C-alpha cells in the first residue's frame, strides 16, 4: 500500500502542487478579513462547498435508466446539493445587503 501511495504521488505530482497551493491560497485569502464579514464569508464558502452536486449529477448520468434506486438517491443528492448552493448564495447576498449602504 505504501508503494501504491508513492506511485500515486509520482503520477500526480502536479496535483500535489495544485493542492498545496490551494490550501495556502485558502489561508491567505481569508487571513485578513474584517470581523463583520465572517458570517457572510462562512455562508459564501458554504455555498461553494455545494460543488459536491457535480458528483451527484455525474452519478445520475452514469446510472442505468432503469436503476431506480440509484436514480432516486441521485435526485435526492442533486436536490440537497442544489439547496445548499442556491440557498447559500442567496443567503450570502441578503446578508451583504447591509453593506450596500456603505459609501
Amino acid at each position, binding site marked *: *500500500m505504501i508503494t501504491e501511495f508513492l506511485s500515486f504521488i509520482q503520477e500526480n505530482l502536479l496535483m500535489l502542487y495544485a493542492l498545496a497551493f490551494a*490550501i*495556502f*491560497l485558502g489561508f491567505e*485569502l*481569508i*487571513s485578513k*478579513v*474584517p*470581523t*463583520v464579514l465572517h*458570517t*457572510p464569508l*462562512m*455562508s*459564501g*464558502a*458554504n*455555498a*461553494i*462547498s*455545494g*460543488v*459536491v*452536486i*457535480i*458528483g*451527484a*449529477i*455525474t*452519478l*445520475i*448520468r*452514469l*446510472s442505468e*435508466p432503469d436503476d431506480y434506486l*440509484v*436514480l432516486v438517491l*441521485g*435526485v*435526492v*443528492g442533486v*436536490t440537497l*446539493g*442544489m*439547496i*445548499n*448552493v*442556491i*440557498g*447559500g*448564495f*442567496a*443567503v450570502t*447576498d441578503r*446578508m451583504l445587503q*447591509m*453593506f*450596500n*449602504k456603505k459609501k
Partner: protein
Amino acid sequence: MVTIYNLMYFTGVLGFIVGLQRLGHPATAKKGNLFAAGGMVLAILASFTTPLEGSHGNYLWIFTGLILGTIIGYRAATKVQMTEMPQLVSLFNGLGGACAVLISLIEVLMKGNEGIPVLGLISLLLTLSIGSVAFSGSLVAWAKLDGRLRDKTLVPPYPHIFNLIVLVACVGMIIFLSFDQSLLFPLLMVLMLISLVYGITFVAPIGGADMPVVISLLNSFTGLTAALAGLIYDNQLMLMGGILVGSSGIILTVLMCKAMNRSLGNVLMGAFGSSNSSTTSAGEDHRQAKELSKPDASILLAYSSSVMVVPGYGLAVAQAQRVCKDLDNELSSRGVHLSYAIHPVAGRMPGHMNVLLAEVDVPYEKLMDLDQANEALPNVDVVLVIGANDVVNPSAREDSNSPIYGMPILNVDQAGKVLVLKRSMSPGYAGVQNPLFFNDNTFMLFGDAKASLGELLAEMKTGVLV
C-alpha cells in the same frame, strides 16, 4: 472537445477564488458572491454537458433535482428572518454533507461488487464518514441555534473520552475496510452510523453561543468531502473548490475564535459558553450597583448633547431594535447627537448587530467600529448600553486573571455617564461579573431591553420634558 469543458471547470474554480477574495472586503463583497455563484453556474453547466463515457443521459432526473433544489433553497433563503441566518447556513451545510454521503453510498452500490481499488475506496470511506459528521453535526448546531435543543441534551457521559473512542472506531473501520472488502456493505452502514453519532456527540457539548464557530468548522469538513469526491470522479473543480473551502473554512474558524479572545481547542472543549459554567464570577463583588429611575434616565438622555448606543446580545434577545431606532429618532429630533458603537463580537455571530440595526434602517454613517468609538468615547456625554456585557467589561483591560483578559473592549467607562439596560446582575456569555456596573458614573436600568426602551421613549413623548 473535452478541453472546452475542462476549461469551463477551470474558469469555475477561478470564479471561486476571485469570489472568496472579493468577499473579504466590505466594498467588493457583493460582487465576490456573484463571482463565486457564476463559477458554480459554469461548473454545473459543464457537469451535465461534458462528454462522459458510459453516460445514459437521464437528464430529466437531473433537472428535477436541480429545479426542486433551486425552489426550496431560494424560498428558504428569502423567507427567513435576518437573525435566523446562522441556523439556516448550518442547515444548508448539513444538506451539502448529506449529498456527499449519498454520492459515496451510490458509488459503492454501483461498483462495490467488482472490488474497488484501495485508494479510491479510502476516498469513498472518508467522504462517507466526514460527510456524515458534517451532516449530523450541522443538524445539531441548527437545532441549538433554533432553540430546539437545550445545551445539555444529547451530551454523552464523559463526552471527551466518549468522542475519542468513537473517533478511533471510525478510523479503525476505515483502515480495516481498506485491507478487507469482504464485508463492505454491512460495515459501510456501521461506519455511517458511527460517524453520524460522532457528529452529534462532537457538537452537543459545545455551548449554543459557540455554534457559529462550529458551523464554520463543519463547513470546512463539507469542503473536504467535496474534495475527496473530486478525487473519486477525477474532477478537478470538485477537488480544488473543496480544498479551497476546506482551508479557508479552517482559517475562518480560527479567526472567529481569535476575535472572541479564545482558542479553537478551548471552544471545542466546550470550556465556557455552555450555560453550566456561566457563574464563575471572580470573587463576588460586594459593592452596590446604582439604579436610576426611568424618568430620570430619560431626562438625562434628552438633555445630553451626545449619546452613544452600545448594543449587545440582549438587544437581539429582546428584539428591541425597532424601539431603539424610535428612541434614536426622538433623541435626534431633540438635537442630541447619537451614534452606535459596534463591537466586533457583540451578539452571538459576527455582524449580528449590523444585521439587527440594518433591519430598522439605521444609516451606516451612524455606526462606529471599535477604534472609532474608543477614540470618540472620552467626549461622549452618555453611553446607553443595551443588553451588552462582555464587550464593555473593563476586566478585559485590567484584570489579568479574567478569562476575557486581553480582548479589546469598548472603553465606555471613559464617557461621562453610562446607562446599562439589562434584566438583572447576571453575567453574559463569558460568565464573568462586570466591574463597570459598580462604577460611580454607571447607572443600571433593570428590565427587558424592549420594555425599558419603550418606557424611556414614552417618558420623553408624554411631553413632561419638552
